[in-house]
Structures are given as C-alpha cells and as structure tokens.
C-alpha cells in the first residue's frame, strides 16, 4: 500500500515535432519535485491552527502568515528559475483506481501554475499581514485565520491540479472556505444568507463543472490534463463528438466561480465578510479560478474541431459581464460594493480575452488586477476601519485624514481605470488590442461585440471610480466618527501592493520586454495565441482619451457638494432604477426559483409523501386494525396487544409494551415458520 505513495513522475515528451512549437524547459529538478509543499503547507497549517491556534502566541496569525510567506518565496524562486530555463514538471501519487481510471493527487509545475503560486503567495501574504491589524479584537480571530488559510490552501490545491478531479476538490474547498469567511459574523442572518448565496450560486454552476469534467474525462479516457491534450493531438479521442458540450459545461462551472453573468449575483453580497476576505477573494483566489480553468484548458478551447464555438460564447459572456455589471457599480453607495461590481466587470475582461484567444493578455490582466484590486479593497477596508461605515455617504474628505490610504488608493484607481503607466493600462489595453486583432483577422460577431463593449467598459470603469474617489476622499467629511490613518501593519501592505500596482505592468511592455508572456506560455502543450504583436497604438490613443473624459465627467458630476440631496441629484431616468435593482436578476432568482422550490414544490412533495405515497400502507394498516379488532373479540390470544394499545392511544408503559412486544415475537416466529412451510409445500407440489 505504501509503495503507491511514492510519486509517479511524468516527464513530458515535448510536443515540438507535431506542432513546430518549441518549448524550452527543464524539469526543474528538486525544486519542482518538492513543489507539493506549496499546497500541503497551508492546508496542514489550517489544521494546526484549528487545534493549537488559540494556545499559540500569535493566536494563529503567525502560522497562517508563515504559510503564505512560504508560498510566496517558493513561488518567486520557481518564477525565477522558470524565466531562466523554463520548468515543466508533473508529479502525482495514486489514491485509488476506479474501473479503468486511476485517481491521483498531483502537482503541476509549469508557467501557468507558477504564476498562480506566486500571485496567491504574494497577495495572500500582504493581505494576511494587513488582517492582523484589521481583525484585531475580533471575536473569532483564530478561527478566521484557520478558514483564511484553508481558503488560500484550497486555491493552491486547485491551481496545482494535474487532473480534473483535483481541480474539483480545490474548487469546492475554496467554495466552502469562502462560505465560512463570508458568513464570519453569523450572529446576523444577513451574513449567513450572503454565505449561502455564494455557496448555492457556485453549487449551481458546479453542476456544469461536474458534468463537463465527466464528459471530458470519459470521452478523452483520462482525467489528466496532459493526457487529454496528448490524445487530442494524436486524435485518439471521441472528444470531437462531445467537445462542445464538455467545453460549454466546464465554462458554466467557470462562470460560477468567476462571477460571470448570470452567475455574478453572489459576489457583491460576499462583501458581508471581513474586508481582508474580500481583498483576497477578489484578487488572487476564488474568482480567478474560473479564468484559470479556461486558461488551463486553453489549448482545447482554441481548437474548433474539439470545442466548436464555445470560444465565441466565452467572449460574448465576458463582454456582457464586463459592460453591464460595470454599470451596476454606478449606483452603489457601499464602497465595497462599487469595488465588487468592478471586480465582476474586470473578470469579464479576462474571460472575454480568453474567448478571443488572448491567453497571455487575459492572464496578464488577472495578474495585475490581483494587485490593484486587493490594494483597492484593503484601502477601502482602511477607510471603513476609520469611519465605521461602508457607505460613501458617511465619508468624504478623507484624503486629509488618511494620506497613505489616499495615495495608495489613487495608484490602485489609476491602475484599474487603465492610466499610463500603471499596471492596468498595459494589461487592459493589451486585451483590447488582442480583441481587435482577432476581430480584424476573423471578423466574427463575438469578436467585434467584445471589442466594442471593452472600449465602452473602459469608460464605465473610469466613471464609477471617479465617483467613488470623489465621494470618499474629496470634499468635507460628512460622517460622525473621528477618522484617522490606519496603523502601520495595515498601511505597509497597502504600499507593497501599490508598488506592484504601479510597476507590474512593466513585466510585459510590447517591444521592450515579454517577461510575462515567456512566463505563462511554458506549457506542456503549445499555446497558439491570437494576440497582436504589441499594443495597438491607435487604439491606445482612442481608449486613453475616453478614460480621461470619463474621469473628468465623473469627477465633475460627483464633485463635492453640500447636502445629501444634491449628491443624489444626478440620476438617469429608467436606467438608474434598473441599476439600483441590479437588472432584477437577483429578484428573479429569489422569487422565480428559490422561493417556489423551497415553498410550494418542497411542501407539496412532503404532502404527497405523507398523504399519497404513504396512504397505501396506512390504509392497509387501518384495515388490518379493524380486522384485528374483530378477531380480537373472538380470540384474545391470536392478535396481540400492540394494535389494541395503538388504537386505544394510551401511553403504554415500557414494561407493558415489552410484554406486548414479546407476545408479538412468538407469533412472528410461528407465522413465518408456517409461511415457509406453506411456500415450500407449494414448490414441492408444482
């Protein structure tokens, strides 16, 4: 049994001959062989915190943060080696066989997973440090860090997965720990409901993930990504027959975790959790899972002979998400909800990028977004910490009180709206350029739809961020607390993230450096990209002015005003009510699906169960009771006391009952013996 625990190492047969695509990579040596520690350390630490956290000097924070620091450092080293010589490695241990399928746990070390290790580690570490200050004095401080550690650990299980099963496991671990974190303040049912909403929305989408994984595994004959790709290349699969459905179903799973329309509803409500949770959830973990899944399966989605036109669906869903969900950020008063809808919208960008074949541009946006969005959330958290309210109507003028928070928040905003030279400028404009490139090479509806809405989305993003910044940091303070700058333990992580938000874009400056592209294209299967060579400068000169105009208009419309009434004065008829009701999508789910299911449908089923399905035995029993009563008058000894007791409805004492039941046994024995004799006799005769 123990023999099976030794790793089965896969060395890749490089696929260069078939595709003409060179992948220069080594196997990473001991560094890659021990990379499973990245996954195991945070998960083990979770258990350690659960059992020993309360007794430990730092109440669990120390262990959790150590885990993240470990992941960050290991991820950084891997990233470095990967840039030098490339790493392709896959390790696995067998955990069982079911029919022809081997079940395995494993760990993939390639460009894509290394990028995620690094990202989860670095962002996670900074957020955990920040959380020490933010969560100070929390009722469930230790428990929080246990769940938080599991949250990051689940994400690492997911990104390290060499097969669909492990991906599903990580996927759901992330789901359940997010449920715990969102519902962290469970004394209030609102928070519990938010947690339930997140869990259930994801569970619905997971039906797609499960079915997609099943179809893909059965038609390709393997759960392993690398084997699926190899079989695709060599044409040994029936994947062509089912590929569209597999691709679509898996994408539905991805839509759930990555909050794509119409599964986006859970993400804004997930703000009920403590702010560090939002920061991590919206950046490196959880919401990136869907993008990661599509990226992991990118070679599959890029081949129309397998995936059909799922790609177009991905692009269209992404585009709808990035545009229409961005609109919802316009009317929110809760600063975290503005950022939440902004995340939904940015995830739309990444997904749309995947749909138009912009692999590295989409991942680049995932990478930069993780830094600037966690920065913005932590900044918002710092503000909330200071004014004790989530509502921007209780803020205003905070730049004077909290300079560090203000300036880092401005860097984050610059990155989010895509201003030169901040990180978001490079990644977002590359997505738009790639989309445009695809659309001009192969002018499909999906590609053009994506390009146009992406440019529109840039306007909306700048607009709502201008509003948020103005209401929060400019004008005069309108609340009743005594705002103050947050402690160092919170502002230092802000500065760390701000550095990334400002400079991460330079990892991939077209024509100058392609570090990021080289990084994430180290894959065992060739990545054929539809990206433009570099930025599309004419497009940049269209998009950047649009952003500037939106910022100006937004800032002017929501400029500091005296009264609340004046602040609320700007509305657009028809549209604003629509935005405020979130396009009525949440209401439709609640009143159209959940309430009818939990109400009439469930109650009806139970009624049927008790009154119809159960009627036959009950009626039979009723009849038997009457017969019994009749017989009883003839012979007390034939029918025992049980039915009598029952019909009398008396509370029989244990002693009496036992006697009655004992009488029943003898009869049972006698009757079943008689039955056997009769049946046997019948068989003998015939």
């Amino acid at each position, binding site marked *: 049994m123990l023999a099976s625990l030794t790793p089965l190492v896969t060395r890749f047969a490089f696929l260069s001959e078939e595709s003409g695509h060179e992948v220069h990579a080594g196997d990473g040596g001991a560094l890659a062989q021990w990379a499973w520690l990245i996954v195991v350390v945070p998960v083990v630490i979770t258990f350690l915190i659960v059992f020993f956290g309360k007794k430990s000097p730092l109440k669990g924070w120390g262990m959790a943060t150590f885990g993240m620091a470990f992941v960050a450092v290991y991820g950084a080293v891997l990233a470095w080696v990967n840039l030098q010589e490339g790493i392709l490695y896959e390790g696995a241990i067998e955990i*069982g066989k079911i029919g022809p399928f081997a079940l395995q746990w494993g760990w993939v070390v390639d460009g894509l997973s290394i990028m995620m290790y690094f990202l989860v580690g670095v962002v996670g570490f900074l957020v955990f440090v920040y959380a020490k200050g933010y969560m100070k004095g929390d009722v469930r401080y230790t428990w929080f860090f246990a769940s938080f550690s599991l949250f990051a650990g689940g994400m690492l299980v997911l990104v390290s997965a060499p097969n669909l099963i492990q991906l599903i496991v990580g996927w759901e671990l992330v789901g359940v720990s997010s449920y715990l974190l969102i519902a962290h303040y469970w004394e209030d049912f609102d928070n519990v409901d938010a947690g339930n909403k997140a869990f259930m929305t994801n*569970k619905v989408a997971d039906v797609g993930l499960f079915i997609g994984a099943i179809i893909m595994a059965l038609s390709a004959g393997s759960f392993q990504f690398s084997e699926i790709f190899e079989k695709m290349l060599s044409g040994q699969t029936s994947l062509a027959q089912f590929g569209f459905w597999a691709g679509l179903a898996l994408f539905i799973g991805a839509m759930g975790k990555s909050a794509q329309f119409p599964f986006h509803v859970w993400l804004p409500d997930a703000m009920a959790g403590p702010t560090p949770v939002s920061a991590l959830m919206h950046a490196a973990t959880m919401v990136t899972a869907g993008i990661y899944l599509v990226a992991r399966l990118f070679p599959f989605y890029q081949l129309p002979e397998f995936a059909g036109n799922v790609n177009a669906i991905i692009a269209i869903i992404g585009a709808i998400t990035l545009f229409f969900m961005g609109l919802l950020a316009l009317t929110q008063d809760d600063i975290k909800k503005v950022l939440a809808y902004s995340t939904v919208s940015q995830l739309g960008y990444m997904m749309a990028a995947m749909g138009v074949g912009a692999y590295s541009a989409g991942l680049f946006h995932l990478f930069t977004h993780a830094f600037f969005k966690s920065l913005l959330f932590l900044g918002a958290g710092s503000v909330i910490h200071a004014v004790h309210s989530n509502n921007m109507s209780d803020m205003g003028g905070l730049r004077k009180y909290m300079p560090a928070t203000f300036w880092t928040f401005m860097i984050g905003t610059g990155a989010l709206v895509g201003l030169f030279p901040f990180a978001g400028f490079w990644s977002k404009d590359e997505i738009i350029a790639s989309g445009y490139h695809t659309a001009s090479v192969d002018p499909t509806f999906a590609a053009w739809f994506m390009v146009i809405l992406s440019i529109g989305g840039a306007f909306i993003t700048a607009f709502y961020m201008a509003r948020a910044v103005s209401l929060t940091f400019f004008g005069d303070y309108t609340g009743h607390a005594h705002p103050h700058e947050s402690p160092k333990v919170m502002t230092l992580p802000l500065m760390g993230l701000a550095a990334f938000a400002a400079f991460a874009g330079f990892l991939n400056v077209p024509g100058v450096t392609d570090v990021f592209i080289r990084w994430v294209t180290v894959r065992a299967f060739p990545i054929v990209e539809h990206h433009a060579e570099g930025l599309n400068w004419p497009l940049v000169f269209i998009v950047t002015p649009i952003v500037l105009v939106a910022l100006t208009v937004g800032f002017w419309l929501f400029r500091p005003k005296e009264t609340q009434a004046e602040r609320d004065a700007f509305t657009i008829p028809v549209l604003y009510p629509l935005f405020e009701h979130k396009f009525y999508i949440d209401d439709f789910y609640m009143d159209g699906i959940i309430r009818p299911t939990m109400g009439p449908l469930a109650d009806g089923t139970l009624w049927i169960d008790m009154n119809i399905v159960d009627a036959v035995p009950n009626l039979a029993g009723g009849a038997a009771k009457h017969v019994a009563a009749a017989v009883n008058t003839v012979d007390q000894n034939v029918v025992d006391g049980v039915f009598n007791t029952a019909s009398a409805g008396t509370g029989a004492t244990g002693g009496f009952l036992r006697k009655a039941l004992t009488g029943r046994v003898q009869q049972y024995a006698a009757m079943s013996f008689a039955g056997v004799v009769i049946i046997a006799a019948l068989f003998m005769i015939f």
Partner: protein
Amino acid sequence: MEWFDSGWGLSLVVFLPLVGALVLAAIPRANEAAMKWVALVTAIVTFVVSIVLAMRFDYGAAADIQFGTNLPWIDAISANYHIGIDGISLPLVVLSTFITLLVVIYSWEHWPEPHNPKLLLALVMILATGMTGTFVALDLILFFVFFEIVLLPMYFMIGIWGDTSMRVVPVVNWEIELRLYASIKFFLFTLFGSAFMLLGFLALYFKSGDVGPNTFDILQLSELGRAGVFTGAFAFWVFAALFLGFAVKVPMWPLHTWLPDAHTAAPTIGSVILAAILLKLGTYGFIRILIPILPDEARRWAWFIGVLAVIGIIYGSLACLAQNDVKRLIAYSSVGHMGFVMLGVATMTDIGINAAIIGMVAHGLITGLLFFIAGSMAHRYHTRDMNRLGGQMLLMPKMGVLLGFAAMASLGLPSLAGFWGEFMSLLASFNPLDGLSLGLFRTLMVLASIGTVMTAGYMLWMLRSVNFGEPAAEWLDDHNLHDVDKFEWMAWAPLVVMTIAIGIYPKIVLGATNDAVVNLVNKAFGG
C-alpha cells in the same frame, strides 16, 4: 493462523457479539458496570478481529472469496454454512464492527428511556451478528436468516426506547404513539419485502435443480445465472421478488416511507445503526445476489432502477427542504443519498458499482455521525424543531462545528468521503453498460446532479436554522446545554477522522473493491 483464515476468523466476527449477548443475559440486572464492560470488550474484540481480517486480506486477489468455509448445515434442503468475503464485502464488514463499537462507546453514558441497558446492549449485539452475518453469507438461506435476525432487535429498539410523542397518521386519522407506529411500520414493510425475497430464493433453489443438484449457494447460482439457466418469465418473477425485498431495505422510492418514521422515532443509537448499516443490507443484496444471479434481468430493468433512484434523489431532497424536524430531515436525506448509491448500481458498470460501495461506506460514516449529533442535540434541547433552535454556535460551539462538518460531508464536499460515491455514480451514468439507453442515463445524470444542488440547499438551510443567528431566549439559561462530552468525542472523532481519510485517500475502500467489482461486472455481463 491457518484456522483463522479458513472460516474461524470470519465466524468470530459474526458470532462473538452473539456470545456477548448471551453473557449479557446472564448478568444480573443491577450490575450495570459489568454489562457495559462486557459489551465494550465484545465490541472491541470483534472490531480488532475484523481489522486483522482486513490486514490479512490479500488485496491482490480481492476478486476471490477469502477466509471462507463451506460446511453442511441443513442437509435436508442442502443449505450450507458457506461464508467468505471478497473486496466488496470486506469494507462493509469492517464498517459494521466499527459502527457497533462506536455505538457501544456512545451508550456508556447516554441511555434512552426506559433505561434497561441490559436489553439494549444485548439487542445491539444481536444486531451486530445479523449485520456482519449478512455481509459474509454466501448461502441464500444463511443470508436470509441473518437478514431477518436484524429485524427484531431494531423493532424492539424503536418500539421500546423510541419517541413517545403522539403522531397523527394522515389518511386514516389515527392518533398513535410515534414509536409504536414507526416500529410496526418498519417491521411490516421489511417483512413484506422479505417474504417476497424468500419466495425468490426458493424459486432459485428449485430451478437450479433443473441442471444439477438443488442449491442455495450464491456462488453456484451466480455461475448458473451467467450460464443462462434463469431466463424468461421465471427470471422476471424472481427478479421482481428479490427487487422488492432489497428495495424496501434500501429504501427505494416509493417504498421508503417507513424510513423517516423509523429514524425519527428510534433512539439515537438505533438511528445510527439503521442508517449506517441496515440500509446497506439492501444495496448489498443488489450487488451480491441480484446482479450476479440474474444479470440479464438486471440489465433489462436497469432503467427502472435508475429512474426510481433519481426520483428518490430529487424527491428526498425536496422533502428535506420542507422539513422542520432535524432527525426527519436527515432521514429524508438518506433517501437521496441511497438514490445515488442505487444510480451507481443501475449503471451496471464497474465504475458505478464501485461508486455504490464507496457511497455506502461514506453514507454509513457521515449519516451515522449526523444521527449521533442530532440525537445528542435532541437529548439536550428536548426538541428537534428547527424553528425553535438557533445560535448553536454560541450555545455549544463544538457541537455546532461537528454538525457543520457532518453537513458539509453529507452534501458531498470534495476531499471528504461523500464526494467519491456521488461523483462517480454521476460519472458512471454518462456511460452505462452497453445496451442501456444512453439518452435516459444521461438525463438521469443531469437530474441527479441537480439533486446535489438541492442537497446543498437543505443542508445549508439546516445549518442556518440550527447553528447560526442568536439563540432564542428559552435556551440562554438552559443548564442541559453542555457541549460535546467525553464519550461523544470518543464515539464521533473516529467517524470524523475516517470521513477525512477516505476523502483524501479513497484507496482505503477502492483498494479492496475495485478488482472485485471489475470481476463481478465482467462475469455478469461479459468483459
């Protein structure tokens, strides 16, 4: 150890509890401590012997019957004492001894009213003999005897120690004590099923005489079944009879209605044994007897089994969503979970049957844990009404965490044991056995996976009502509400550990079952 491997080991596992029961009978009523110790020692020894069996089991030959013996028993009808286990029965045997041990530990300080530990422990011991006996029997009469032995102790357990509140039975409008109603219902349903099952067994016995000596031997009958001896209308009627017998026990929709009442009324350890082991007797019957002996008929009616299974999943989940009674909710959830097990069986593939077995083990561990917790909660709150409960995380945080864990495991969270059975039976239904309707089974797959969503829905709903929020005023000064005690920990922690262990390393079960299942499917349907 020759003696051990050639039947004695298995016989010890089966009959030690019976010996324990006899010893218990001899102990004077006043000496409770002695009773507990006798029961505990018996349970521990039995468990240890079963572990020794598992360690000595040759996993390389998991498809073969091991540790068996075949002795003449009732010559007149050529019924033999034929026992033995392969990879399919091994996990279930160990599960039975394991759960029995935990039940005895839990009982140490948790006695339902009316007290009488002597009788209660003796019944548990007899149950243990019946359960393990069913899993090792390779002779139909022996199987039947063990199958029926289980019936009476459970009947008494529910009838004597059950819930004494009054229940108004719909349709016929009786008012009757719940324990009476439930115990009689349980008894009659199962007896109804077993009567048909016995008929089926006898029919097989006489039919086997056509091609040789009459036999009740399961292995020989399987050979005959494969050779096509049982066909046509005969096979149909036998199939129908056996199906009824097993389906009542599983229970499959629409024969399930005894289950919510029995579970709700039964004392805690009764519900645990019922859920963890007794239900598996039915599914085991499908796998060990029905499919090998009547493969063609099983294939012909697979669609029917699959449809009933999925109705069970959806219907059970919907019924759960309408529940306010914690124990009833868990009981209905069993209908759904056993639906997944039966869906796996219905696909008639190696993946599906593996899924069914690991699903059975997982359900035994997880639902066993849930009923333990629900029982302990009911004992403390004196109510099972979810509308009155709430805020358990503040009142009894450890109990709350355990309930949360069990609920998550029950909804099939990957990385815990419940996931494998659920996911693999969905996997199997995409590609069922050749000749079964692909369209139908794929539809069933989609419907069943919608069932997983509803499962999550009612489990989260239960957690919301019971665990979260602020506790109602009535509980704030209630001194009954002490958190998980020592004996509860000792009984529950092993379940938690095993749920995680199988979730992370399913080979614990699959390592035994896979070869045996592949062999079974190949023999029955041609490989």
